[in-house]
């Protein structure tokens, strides 16, 4: 049944950057029992006081429509774009990954980081902090590889996304 399949959607929500707007969006998701898989928010236009919230959510097609409509009716929301539907779009995530170790493991982590094009942004004799940007899958793969090599801490931004091409959203 198509109605029952759970789909994953990335939505880009342009909002007035005012007090409480994030709480409104999060409250909507928790109050109505929708899922949040990832959520990022930051001001994107200081002059117009606009912030962009990128939220990755999942649900049946009916729920996804609901989420979109519910977001749209929040007063400070300018626009809601379902990037999964209105694609093609780009998705990127950044992670800081701390690996603690010495000897061969330490060398190996550096070698893998090189392959993944992760940058070293902090180093001690016994540790590295890697900065890495890419798709969620790529970040997951990198973090998994670091696991046996002394993975100590991970901090991720969550997904930011944008339509490809000339279209604005």
């Amino acid at each position: 049944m198509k109605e029952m399949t759970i789909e994953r959607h990335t939505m880009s929500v342009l909002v007035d950057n005012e007090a409480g707007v994030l709480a409104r969006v999060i409250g909507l998701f928790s109050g109505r029992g929708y899922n949040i898989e990832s959520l990022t928010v930051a001001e994107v236009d200081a002059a117009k006081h606009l912030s962009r919230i990128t939220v990755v959510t999942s649900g049946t097609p009916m729920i996804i429509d609901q989420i979109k409509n519910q977001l749209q009716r929040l007063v400070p929301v300018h626009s809601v774009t379902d990037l999964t539907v209105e694609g093609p779009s780009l998705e990127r995530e950044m992670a800081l990954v701390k690996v603690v170790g010495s000897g061969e493991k330490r060398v190996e982590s550096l070698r893998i980081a090189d392959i993944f094009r992760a940058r070293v942004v902090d180093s001690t004799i016994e540790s590295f902090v890697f900065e890495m940007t890419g798709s969620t899958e790529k970040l997951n793969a990198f973090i998994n590889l670091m696991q046996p090599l002394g993975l100590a801490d991970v901090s991720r931004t969550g997904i930011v996304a944008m339509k490809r091409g000339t279209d604005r959203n």
Partner: protein
Amino acid sequence: MATEPISGAEIIVKALIDQGVEVIFGYPGGAVLPLYDALFKQNKMRHILVRHEQAAVHAAEGYARSTGKVGVVLVTSGPGATNAVTGLTDALMDSIPIVCLTGQVPTHLIGNDAFQEADTTGITRPCTKHNYLVKSVEDLSRKVHEAFYVARSGRPGPVLLDLPKDVQQAKYEYVNHAGQRHRTYNPAQKPDRSQVERAVELMASAKRPLFYIGGGCINSGPLACKMLADFIRLTGFPCTQTLMGLGAFPASDPLSLGMVGMHGMFESNHAMHDCDVMINIGARFDDRVTGRLNAFSPGSKKIHVDIDPSSINKSVRVDIPVIGDVGHVVEEMMRIWKARQVKVDHKALAAWWDQINQWRGRDCLKYKTSDTIIKPQFALERLHAAIKDKDFYITTEVGQHQMWAAQFLKFEKPNRWMTSGGLGTMGYGLPAAYGVQVAHPNSLVIDVAGEASILMNIQEMATLVQYRLPVKIFIMNNKWMGMVRQWQELLHGGRYSESYSDALPDFVKLAEAFGAAGLRAEKPGDLDGVIKQMIDIKGPVMVDVCVDEKENCFPMIPSGAPHNEMLLGPDDQSAKPVSEEGMVLV
């Protein structure tokens, strides 16, 4: 436009006057003293002093629902605001336009757990359409005007303005922002024409059509209801109403099937189940209407007209959504219908009406009459007979009496029926009734109540007496929380856990203690005389109607059952045991 600097409190008062506010329902306190001072110095708006902040919101709802205007509430910070939460939630569920002004501690104390501080915008975010914490007097006039715009636009709802005391005292110039276009919030009023065309095509092809109309028609205004009625008559299709939609189409019209839903009419529910084209106008497929979703009107194509896109496909998947205001949509439908000279399938329609008339023939509101005890249905029949030719408004509390009132009182016009539909708030009826009475001082306003519900806001008797508001409170006293008892009887083996109210007050003496008149009807023969007396007394009256304690409300769709498995009465043999899934439903 700009004027001499005045205080924030005066800015608010000016903005309210510019918005055409005539009356405010409120209760003072420390954090709103500057506002109350500014109110004292003006004479354009009236203030009604309530006895509990919840009642202030319900009163504003009654005012709003009966006039189509925005209701205004003014309460203090902390407990004033938290007490208003039930009312705000009620207004949100039933789409009633309210602007609620709450005091707040001064901005420098916010977050300090100051005296009578509560995170009002945090608490009310999920129970308002929108809310504002106004931290600067410069934003004040814009935000007050914006609050009114948001409350009444699109799908109406409650909007809250949280006003720190220092902002009320700071000085700034007032600018009238009324009528300004909003940056982000501009809901569409006019429908997409092609969708309306598709809807008309589907309606023209219908063999078993049904209009299912709701509260959105009433929010669209009396003119929209009139157009809708004209259109329904043009089609000759049957029309059922939701609890919130009663009065949107005249009950006496032969095309009206009456209320739909859990305690709706047998013919309405069967028509919902068997129709082939359902035309939902301003209703929201509420669970009280749909019953079990996977058995809801299985064979129909559905048109759904709603101003709120998030109502579309929320619980029931529809074939033709039409987003827009009922008035605009119906106007367009009518225009296209006439332009295309639509010919309905008269033969099929006649057969459909035959079927409907068979269902009607079951006379689903029939009850066992009695010469010795007052049947609640009989009490309402007598009430209806006494008021039907008068200019009347009805409010209700919540429970059995509410459903009986919906079944037995007939509404010919919109805005005459005020009830807590979505939230089901006991204690709604009395304050809502005086909200209506304030707006319509010369009309007959009756709160049909239960003895349990009325006690939830009984303190409001003092408000009635203070303002000499001649509201009539018609208590159907069966000594039980009737609807709870009914469900315990039908679903929980007759174990009446905590649903009997011992130690009820003597309502006649209670009315007198407040300074109102009290009457009692104990036998069926008393009713007509007592009702006449109630209407004739000039001031507020409380009537204690001692009704049958054991009467249940029928017809009824049992929890989890489809529309065509309605129970007609206590002796209905078709009753099936309620399923596990049905048991968990409310």
